């Protein structure tokens, strides 16, 4: 069974030191979560969160592009306008519609992927979330009960103001 321990830090440097020590003890980014009221970025390789958002957005845009081109193409052939001998379907006069719908695809995918990647709306409610004081950085660690004291000591050594076990929701 996993337990959750949290340490509160006043500075980014102290939190960084704690993360480095915990990583050296075998804890990976999946076990560590940093909470703060504002974004806190660490150097590359410390707590990386790989992202496929850019790829997803390009794919979403491409899907919308194909959908709208097919839609316009088939509807113009199924519901023919009188064009006086001009082509029923012509790409360039409809390019604006294609562009806008492609961008709409990119926008909606960005939002959808943000919701997915951030974990919002699919958060495991049993995992406790520490209360973060303004201007503080809180580090949550998932660990096994036997490691509890070792981790608490590591957090305190790094300069944590408060270290405590987080109560899990049932």
């Amino acid at each position: 069974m996993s337990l959750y321990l949290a340490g509160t830090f006043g500075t980014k440097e102290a939190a960084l030191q704690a993360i480095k020590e915990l990583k050296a003890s075998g804890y990976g980014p999946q076990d560590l979560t940093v909470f703060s009221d504002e974004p806190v970025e660490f150097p590359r390789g410390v707590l990386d969160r790989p992202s496929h958002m850019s790829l997803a957005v390009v794919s979403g845009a491409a899907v919308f592009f194909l959908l709208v081109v097919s839609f316009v193409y088939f509807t113009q052939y199924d519901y023919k306008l009188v064009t006086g001998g001009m082509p029923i379907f012509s790409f360039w006069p409809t390019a604006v519609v294609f562009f806008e719908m492609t961008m709409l695809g990119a926008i909606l995918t960005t939002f959808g992927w943000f919701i997915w990647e951030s974990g919002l709306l699919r958060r495991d409610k049993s995992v406790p979330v520490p209360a973060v004081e303004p201007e503080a950085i809180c580090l949550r660690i998932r660990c096994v009960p036997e490691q509890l004291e070792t981790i608490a000591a590591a957090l305190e050594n790094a300069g944590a103001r408060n270290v405590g076990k987080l109560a899990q929701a049932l």
Partner: protein
Amino acid sequence: MAPAAIPYHQVRDDLWRPLAGASKRYTLTLVLLSAIALWGLIAWGYQIRVGIGVAGIRRPVFWGFYLVDFVFWIGISHAGTLISAILRLTDADWRKPVTRAAEAITVFALMIGGLFPLIHLGRVWLFYWLFPYPNSRLLWPNFRSPLMWDVTAISTYLTGSVIFLYLPLIPDVAQLSEHAKGWRLRLYKVLALGWTGSDREWHALERAMKLMAGIILAVAVSVHSVVAWDFAMAIAPMWHSTIFAPYFVVGAIFSGLAGLILALTIVRKTMRLESYLTPHHFGNLAKLLLLMSLLWLYFTFAEHLTVWYGNEPKEMSVFGARVRGRFSPEFWAMVVVNFVVPFVLLGIRRLRSIRTATIASIGVLVGMWLERYLIIVPTLSMPRLSAAWGRYSPSWVEISITVATFAAMAALYLVFSKLFPIVSVWEFEPHAQEEE
């Protein structure tokens, strides 16, 4: 800059303070603005009941105030998205107190601007014919029509702008939900989507904002280009121009900036945000406004010089009416408020201040409205067949609706600023960030 030196807890207190309670002056202003907006709705209702004939638009001027307002408000909407997106992409630090105020302008201006094609339709209950939906009359929209391009462009821009405003609002509403009560608590909790402030969430938010900034820039440019093509695709005198799209985009950013400076001045004064919206911010925005004024002059000159040099009789009729004929007072007034006033007030360093930037902005807003009027009305008044020439004078219905939209814009902005911090709180981070 002052904001960086203010402790985070004080930033939060200062920016949350305007959300608490409503002063008598605030309530009175909101009631007055709502009453004017309601009058506009009544006028629109009257037009729906009696018919589009109650407006001043009649042959040959079929586009009047409604289309002028449409182009004007879509232009104002460029305040937020373009400015905020450019500043976000370039990591300009001074943008922080400016972006949310700008993004909110975009959403509200688009909502108002998007109404005008519906008002202009007359038979507004048939607006859904613009959307492709299966029906038994073999009725499908013509995707090749620039008016159909408008529908897709504005829908995409509005969707993107709402998301662009909403994403950076999430951390703020999550913090607010910890302190709010009653209906505000419920509202903030729903909007916060369960935000906890974890590094996963912050990473995803920052990536999404960077991507959105890039996407929305392209969409914003395309939207005003499409609005320009509504005109340029018609072979009408002084409309059929290849530079119309960039000319409109420049004009949109110009008027958007002016709208933003005016909004920020009011917000700064009424919410006592002098420590956050400093002369430094206004100075930067004023320089941008001056730059856009020069660009606008360049495009206006290029457009008119080409027509004058070409000396094509039909184009020269419209040109003459604008520059030295019956539209010349509006034309020269436009040149004065769009170029002379900003050039003097903002170009001379000693004169540049928050007050002069605000005065110049008010002038630019008037000037850009006049510019749209001068693009639309003279050309339609003087079509290629001189026997079909006519005049246009707006009716009380059009004037009421126009005035009401300004009141509605202000009212929406007032309500927004009471519900959400008008300056993003979390962006004043106390922890220094790593360089990429």
